[in-house]
């Protein structure tokens, strides 16, 4: 069955409304894109949409209560919520350096979760 999907291109400020028509996952037509980059963008968004995951993890004995972390590289969009669930069990202990690995190879994506700041030892209750 032929199906149509609508996207807003985010590659440049023109924000073209692009329509992608496919049949059994095979892309038949892309229309509405102002330029070639729009076609690449919707093809990627249709076949393998990925997003960077950024969240926080509780820290013990840190200067602040939460450590911001991110995925080294973008992960498949449909795995974001499962990644969050996986990370909800994780705790770390200060000190942490920016770039330290916090969780290796999340959900077998080959992507690790890394720290996004230095966090020294302290008593975070002083902050509040």
């Amino acid at each position, binding site marked *: 069955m032929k199906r149509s999907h609508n996207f807003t291109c985010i590659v440049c400020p023109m924000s073209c409304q692009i329509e992608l028509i496919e049949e059994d996952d095979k892309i038949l037509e892309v229309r509405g894109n102002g330029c070639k980059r729009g076609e690449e963008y919707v093809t990627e968004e249709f076949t393998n949409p990925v997003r960077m995951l*950024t969240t926080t993890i509780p820290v013990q004995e840190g*200067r602040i*209560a939460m450590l*911001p972390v991110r995925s080294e590289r973008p992960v498949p*969009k449909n795995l974001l919520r499962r990644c969050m669930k996986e990370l909800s069990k994780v705790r770390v202990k200060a000190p942490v350096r*920016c770039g330290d690995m916090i969780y290796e190879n999340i959900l077998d994506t080959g992507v690790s979760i890394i720290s*996004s700041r*230095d966090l020294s030892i302290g008593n975070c209750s002083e*902050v509040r």
Partner: protein
Amino acid sequence: MIEVDVAIIGGGPAGLASAMKACEEGVKDILIIERGMELGGILLQCIHDGFGTFIFEETLTGPEYAQRYIDEVKKTGINVKLNTMVLEIDSAKRIIAVNQEDGLLEIEAKAIILSMGCRERTRAQILIPGDRPSGIYTAGVAQRYINIEGVIPGKKVVILGSGDIGMIMARRFTLEGAEVEGVYEVMSNPGGLTRNVVQCVEDYEIPLHLSHTITNIRGRRRVEGVTVAKVDSEMRPIKDTERFVPCDTVILSVGLIPENELSKSADVGMDPITNGPIVDEQMQTSVPGIFACGNVVHVHDLVDDVSKVAEVAGKGAAGYIDGKLKKRRSPIKVRAGRNVKYVVPQIIHGEKFDEDIRFYLRVKEIEKSVKTVVLADGERIFEKKIKIVKPPEMVKLDISPDILNRITGDELIIDVEGEEDEEKP
């Protein structure tokens, strides 16, 4: 009394980059004064990525971007006072600050850089009627609760305003397991970047209601719900579209205002449109030796621009101290013309320019296929075609010295011309 060469008020990205630049330019005695317990400013709570694409050519999170500057500052002899709040400054560049260790501090600086950032508009400033229960937060406060303190402030959330922070918080609440009932925006276009509309709202199937507002907040102790309504073209709520939405939390993302109490205490001339100090091409304010940069001047959408303009201020302050800064010649006023809300810098000085000047402008309305035009004494000295301009995205114009040196008269006008204006003589 402490004496310093350059005192920098605020240790966010603007303060950090201006300090680094002043240091590079040879200033010995630099002091950054920050009221928070850490350097980094608002970036520390902006844990999402999207920072640094221009300066570092990679996408970083806010804390990572800040970390890079903090690491650099640590390698220098720049002094930092944390947990220190500046209470007052005057036009003689005396600073009164306070902290627990030193008590009241008096600091005399040869030059001051203002980099206090901005704060959020609150409920009182947009006048939403109704009860006054708990559960109403500005987006930045909610962001701080979740990302720094680890507390999720609610389970069922309604967001008013589609600025970037509001949309980013819609995603953050959703990923943390709260339900975001919808984002309501009074204007007919989203207030933030398209990227955030797609990746923060549409990705999570959060309804974005344009031309809508909250007309009432209900709740005894905690928020119990809000009334939302569609608005007409004059932004008046339409009575029979009113609908009650149960929720326990209301997040306001209704704009930022530069934080300028200190600037005013030093009698710095202010721009009523940007709500920030009037600055020249060196980022110097109307008070000689007082410079300003970052969100305290006008609200920036990209931190990369903040860092870049902060370097101009750092260099300006260094030049002021050693007397290299060009003597102020007759000023040329820069005015916002057609479809331009404001232009920064508002003033340029000099009879001979030897460096590019970057102008930042914010447009009033979305417009396609436009030309930005710089007019001096009625003559078009610069033109540049742009495919589209939008209020959430700042327009940057780099004007070269050979064009600047053609300026006659004491006023520049910057217009954004639409297609139909083009044919006019």
